[in-house]
């Protein structure tokens, strides 16, 4: 019996102690007609060797292609130490640190995580994680509605430059609480949120303005102006940021005159592998004024009976296990292990290391775009400064081109046509620091051939000089 240590002899001893004739008898309170007798659709057990062989095959099946997709998940180098430490049994198999005295390892680590996120974002406080960036944004929106005392509105301004999947997730999570997301258009030239469009809403009551940095196109938003606009109009400024980009970019706490009120984002670039989209982790930071509206676990530093420093879960009155229907959120399990990895990742890299990784990604994407736009018919779309993603216009629909590239084991980018039909044949590309010179050259070469074969350049486009 895999994982079950009982011997027949022990079972008998235990049944005697219980006073039952068989294990089956222990289920005697369950109505007979409910009992299940067969599980035909479940295959019979595999030994560890057999599942190892099966998973070995499956893991090779998907071919580790050369990946130029970003779009919310980024292929950064993760130091080997990160996961060797994170998977130590003491981290990997511990529970939520309810018994603080027996959980000081996790608790101190989470306090360090919060401290690092505060350092990175320039905010006052951080929680100990939410599920992912998208659901973190949903929680940030809910939080902003609760926290904005000046506003009675349940409307939140949501730029169209925010990740489309994030916008969908926020909608799905907040709609039942009658919160309305008002979409803000972007400037088709710059790819930035259109301040002129925003100005139309001046004077109206909004709980918050969401501000992405960089935005989904990789473009840098004028976060100072947006933050100031929000505050001038009684709305909270809610940043949604790439934490690695923050190694180089102005932290939300310093945006505009007063800084963002809340910021959140996807923690994946800090030590989580791509891994098909999860587990990642969402982070959420805020000004101290909002901390009692923050959902999720929060760790505080305190002292024990002897005055010795220790760490414990704090502000639990916000949480569902204490507050039940009055809680700030229903969240219980968060993404502790991913935060463990992120904390170790940040400790290993330090600010210098994160800055270098961010700068290398910036440079690599710049180089990629240069090489791609040297191909006749391929053009860069938004001239505004970007971080490590950019939109390029292709001479033909991205879908077919991407399929051809995939056949050569290159994942060429994220097709924007479904989410942004107004952009035409637009492709979002990304080259992190891990993409090599050779991979970028191979991508360009293949793209050029694919375009030639598909006759893309003949569609009325003039080759560049």
């Amino acid at each position: 019996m895999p994982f079950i240590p009982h011997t027949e002899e022990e079972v008998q001893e235990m049944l005697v102690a219980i006073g039952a004739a068989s294990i089956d008898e222990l289920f005697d309170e369950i109505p007979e007609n409910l009992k299940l007798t067969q599980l035909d659709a479940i295959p019979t057990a595999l030994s560890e060797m057999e599942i190892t062989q099966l998973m070995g095959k499956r893991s090779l099946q998907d071919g580790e292609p050369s990946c130029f997709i970003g779009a919310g998940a980024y292929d950064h180098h993760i130091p080997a130490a990160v996961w060797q430490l994170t998977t130590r049994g003491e981290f990997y198999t511990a529970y939520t640190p309810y018994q603080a005295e027996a959980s000081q390892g996790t608790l101190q680590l989470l306090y360090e995580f919060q401290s690092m996120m505060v350092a990175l974002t320039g905010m006052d406080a951080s929680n100990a994680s939410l599920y992912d960036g998208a659901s973190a944004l949903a929680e940030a929106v809910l939080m902003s509605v609760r926290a904005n005392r000046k506003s009675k509105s349940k409307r939140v301004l949501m730029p169209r430059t925010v990740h489309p999947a994030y916008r969908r997730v926020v909608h799905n999570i907040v709609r039942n609480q009658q919160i309305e997301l008002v979409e803000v258009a972007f400037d088709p030239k710059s790819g930035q949120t259109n301040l002129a469009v925003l100005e139309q809403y001046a004077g109206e009551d909004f709980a918050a303005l969401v501000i992405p940095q960089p935005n989904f196109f990789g473009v840098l938003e004028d976060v100072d102006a947006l933050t100031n606009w929000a505050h001038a109009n009684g709305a909270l400024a809610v940043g949604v940021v790439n934490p690695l980009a923050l190694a180089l970019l102005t932290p939300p706490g310093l945006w505009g005159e007063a800084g963002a009120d809340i910021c959140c984002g996807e923690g994946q670039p800090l030590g989580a592998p791509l891994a098909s989209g999860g587990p990642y982790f969402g982070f959420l930071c805020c000004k101290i004024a909002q901390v009692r509206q923050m959902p999720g676990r929060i760790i505080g530093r305190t002292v024990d009976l002897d005055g010795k420093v220790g760490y414990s879960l704090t502000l639990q009155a916000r949480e569902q296990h204490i507050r039940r229907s009055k809680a700030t959120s229903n969240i219980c399990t968060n993404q502790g292990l991913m935060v463990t990895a992120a904390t170790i990742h940040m400790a290993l890299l330090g600010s210098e290391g994160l800055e270098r990784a961010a700068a290398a990604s910036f440079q690599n994407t710049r180089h990629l775009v240069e090489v791609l736009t040297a191909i006749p018919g391929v053009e860069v779309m938004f001239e505004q400064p970007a971080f490590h993603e950019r939109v390029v216009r292709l001479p033909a629909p991205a879908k077919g081109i991407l399929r051809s590239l995939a056949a050569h084991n290159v994942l060429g980018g994220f097709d924007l046509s479904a989410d942004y039909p107004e952009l035409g044949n637009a492709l979002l590309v990304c080259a992190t620091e891990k993409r090599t010179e050779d991979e970028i050259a191979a991508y360009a070469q293949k793209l050029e051939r694919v375009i030639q074969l598909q006759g893309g350049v003949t569609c009325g486009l003039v080759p560049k000089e």
Partner: protein
Amino acid sequence: MLIFEQSKAGRKATAQAPLTRADVSAIPAQFRRKRSAALPEVSEMQAVRHYTRLSRKNFSIDTQFYPLGSCTMKYNPRACNSLASLPGLLARHPEAPESHSQGFMACLYELQEMLREVTGMEAVSLSPAAGAQGEFAGVAMIKAYHDARGDTARCEILAPDAAHGTNPATAVMCGYKVREIPTGPDGDVDLEALKAVVGPQTAGIMLTNPSTLGVFDRKIEAIARTVHEAGGLLYYDGANLNAILGKVRPGKMGFDVIHMNLHKTFSTPHGGGGPGAGPVGVSERLVPYLPVPMVAKEGDQFTWITEKDRPESIGRLTAFAGNAGVLIRAYIYARMLGREGMPRVAEYSTLNANYMLKQLQAMGFQAAYPQRRATHEFIITLKKQAKELGVNTMDFAKRLLDYGFHAPTTYFPLLVPECLLIEPTETEDKATLDDFIDAMRSILEEATEDPELVKGAPHTMPVKRLDDVKAARELDLAWSPVAE
């Protein structure tokens, strides 16, 4: 000592980062931060040593018995971790095309199918990221169902008073009011009380069965009938699925929607607070509303089911496909258990719980429901000890730490005073259970002979009891170089 306190400005002892610093002057200064973030500057060894030492301040399944009721702290097979960490699986981008995803999708599809079979539901979506998000999905589907029928007056969700806190919190997030149903003296839901409150305003009821009281609600079919007849739906909180895995199907009990905590029943690690995974299964009428993405099989190809295919779906709840790595671990575990292993989970976890209950009763501990069978967990109440000896449940819990055992769940469910909710799981052997029972016996003796010893516990942990009031009043939530 914090990692920050080991930092030294200007230290660059890392091979982790790119060896040179690329020029970023093309980013205009207005966007760039003026000062580097105050992250620790330590060598790789310092980081390794620090976090290795920190880890040793934790209790964990790999080091301790962890009979935390309602949390199903069972052994997490190491193969699940190593196989889910194979390079090919870690490298897959969530937006990779189906052509480069068939290996991954095969695992997800098969897991969907296995969960369908074991729960008796019509269809399963794996995407919710944790139990609470699974609950959210479940209640949102109930709402979507009523809304789609124009049945919009249903504004109330019922939940027993023993329910997990996530139940009412979730109902509120979905725009519902919550009404509590009392528990009868035998631990089952008070059916008459239920009948009294159920009505046209009832959207549904959220139940755990076995309940958090450690008993199987024998009137579950009557409850289902009552709620269904009133037009409401039944939600199954899968937190206690371990108790009945392979023995009873929630679908058969009459539930319309269920969430499963894969980090409990399917043994993915708790990781100091997550990640989990909270797949949802539904009866036929809720299928259109399932959250996306899901995996379909066409011929021998696997394809994604998305918003496009399911226009009535409650949509996606995370940006991608949920906690994929957790799902892979659960898949591996399920395949190793197989058809024959699933019922054993329920059988031996129930055996362990009933054995512990009897042994603890024999030495004078009071069961909350002495006339009932324990399921995979059970409750003892220390109200007698609290009253007579002045030693309360928290004291027992803290003293257990000194004996090398993680404490059971304390003071939950709320309706049982001074309670310990004890869940041994099926992966613990008899000798460990006996050691725990001996420890309880010793603590009971200590509580009688030297109550201060117990009230001052723990004595052997890295810290003694912490000042939680100070923590909440004088908030110190982040290290700052200035404050030190």
